């Protein structure tokens, strides 16, 4: 090894300065990438933080759609959607599902009639292990066009400044559509009577490699009886969970999965804009719910219904929401799973098994 002579003192200082500069540059680039130098960046942490009510989030629970109940059942695919997507659960067949009915509120104890938006989380599993997860809500359009606008809506609606909401509405012309739905759409007395919409457009690709933008809806087979919020309130604060448990025990409940196929030029990137009513729809199959379980011990408790968890044959589109929802849901999931002690699992199962153990001779 031919070692070079040691450098002079000034050269050493210059070298040390260079090394310091390299480290500072590296650390600075890392901090910038992580958003530590950009307090205005819309991060999952800020988005999820903005969902919290004034008293802070309900620890251990989902940060939004916090009130919910688990279900299981199956998806009976007609196979008719195989022309749109090669996803294995759209081929003809029956596939197990796991899901969660929920209310769009950060408060897990909110009375049913105080919540305007209802939702359904759904997971369909194919025999090869591929999974399709979705999180849908009952309004046909989303209140706003972009994740940034959703953050602005949350901020304005929690603001003590009387001018905040008017300013938000003035800046978001898409919002009144949702307000019109919220004011006019009837309530129902059952999750089984609600329709649930994907809202976001996804790209469905078939075995031939052809791709179409698709939105979907789960449309109830049950007869829909419209109610006012006062009528719903009179049924009790937790009517929906009690009702669906009783109803499903009596008979399985079902929804048709309808896929709506976009035409060129339809607004795939903006879930606040409906597509024309005459768009082609494909009946992909029937969701059958045959068992209800409380969330605390239920199979949906620790499932993140991240809408970007998709099988081969379905992918995110230019709609910016699924990515934002995925990032925010992951944040919510990380927080709530770390707070499990604040949302205890019910000891009922353990108690019941020890009782039956004691009863055994």
């Amino acid at each position, binding site marked *: *090894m*031919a*070692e*070079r*002579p*040691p*450098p002079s003192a000034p050269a*050493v200082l210059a*070298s*040390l300065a*260079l*090394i310091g500069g*390299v*480290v500072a540059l*590296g*650390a600075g*680039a*890392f901090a910038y*990438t*992580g*958003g530590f130098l950009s307090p205005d*960046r*819309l*991060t*999952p*942490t800020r*988005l999820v933080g903005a969902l919290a009510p004034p008293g802070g989030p309900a620890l251990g629970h989902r940060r939004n759609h916090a009130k919910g109940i688990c279900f299981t059942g199956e998806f009976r695919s007609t196979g008719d959607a195989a022309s749109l997507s090669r996803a294995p659960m759209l081929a003809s067949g029956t596939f197990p599902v796991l899901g969660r009915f929920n209310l769009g509120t950060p408060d897990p104890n909110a009375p049913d009639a105080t919540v305007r938006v209802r939702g359904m989380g759904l997971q369909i599993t194919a025999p090869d*292990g*591929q*999974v399709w997860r979705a999180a849908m809500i009952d309004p046909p359009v989303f209140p706003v066009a972009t*994740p940034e606008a959703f953050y602005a809506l949350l901020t304005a609606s929690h603001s003590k400044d009387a001018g905040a909401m008017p300013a938000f509405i003035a800046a978001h012309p898409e919002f009144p559509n949702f307000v019109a739905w919220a004011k006019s759409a009837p309530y129902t007395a059952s999750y089984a009577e609600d329709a649930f919409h994907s809202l976001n457009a996804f790209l469905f690709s078939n075995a031939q490699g052809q791709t179409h933008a698709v939105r979907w809806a789960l449309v109830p087979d049950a007869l829909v009886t419209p109610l006012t919020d006062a009528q719903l309130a009179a049924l009790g604060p937790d009517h929906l969970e009690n009702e669906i448990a009783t109803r499903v025990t009596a008979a399985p409940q079902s929804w048709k999965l309808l896929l709506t196929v976009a035409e060129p030029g339809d607004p795939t990137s903006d879930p606040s804009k409906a597509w024309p009513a005459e768009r082609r729809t494909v009946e992909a199959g029937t969701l059958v719910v045959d068992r209800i379980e409380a969330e605390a011990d239920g199979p949906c408790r*620790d*499932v*993140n219904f*991240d809408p*970007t*968890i998709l099988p*081969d044959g379905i992918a*995110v589109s*230019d709609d*910016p929401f*699924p*990515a*934002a929802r*995925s*990032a*925010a849901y*992951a944040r919510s*999931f*990380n927080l709530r*799973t*770390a707070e*499990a002690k604040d949302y205890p699992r019910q000891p009922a199962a353990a108690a019941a098994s020890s009782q039956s153990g004691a009863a055994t001779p």
Partner: protein
Amino acid sequence: MSQDASRFTLLQRTLHWLMAVAILAMLFIGVGMVSTVMPAYVPLLATHKTLGIAILLLAVVRLAVRFVQGAPSLPADLPVPMKLAAHLSHYALYALMISMPLIGWAMLSAGGYPIVLLGGFRLPAIVPQSDALHTLLWSAHVYLAFALFALVLVHLSAALFHGLVRRDGVLESMASVRSDRGIAPGE
């Protein structure tokens, strides 16, 4: 073997620089993706998982190559504390290169997530679904990622210190672009 004993082998240098790029990309993708709600989040997450498994495989290969081919010895005049720091930091780097992908993989398993890489390649869960385990692994993944980045900066500083200040051939043992064949004139 006609290998120059003052340098790592061509295979080792190739693995080192390939992994240097992959690990830096990994750290920046990781810290970037968890701080954004932009559409890039989805491809970044898929890339992060895929690159993580690639790094795990490369690290295992690299460790095996290291056992077989060894490493150039440190300069005899290197002070004992620096020798100790060099050895410990390399143990830590290998430990993190192997454990970080495994922790990430286990974290997703404990969270009940399907683990799908770019190209639709699916991996099985390696631990049962558990909120307590998910929380532990998530914290470990975050804190160890910062530790790994700090270690990369220390590694880089030390390499430059060897190359610019001590001029003892340690930097050249990995960074030299001299060809393996033939000895350059004057050496």
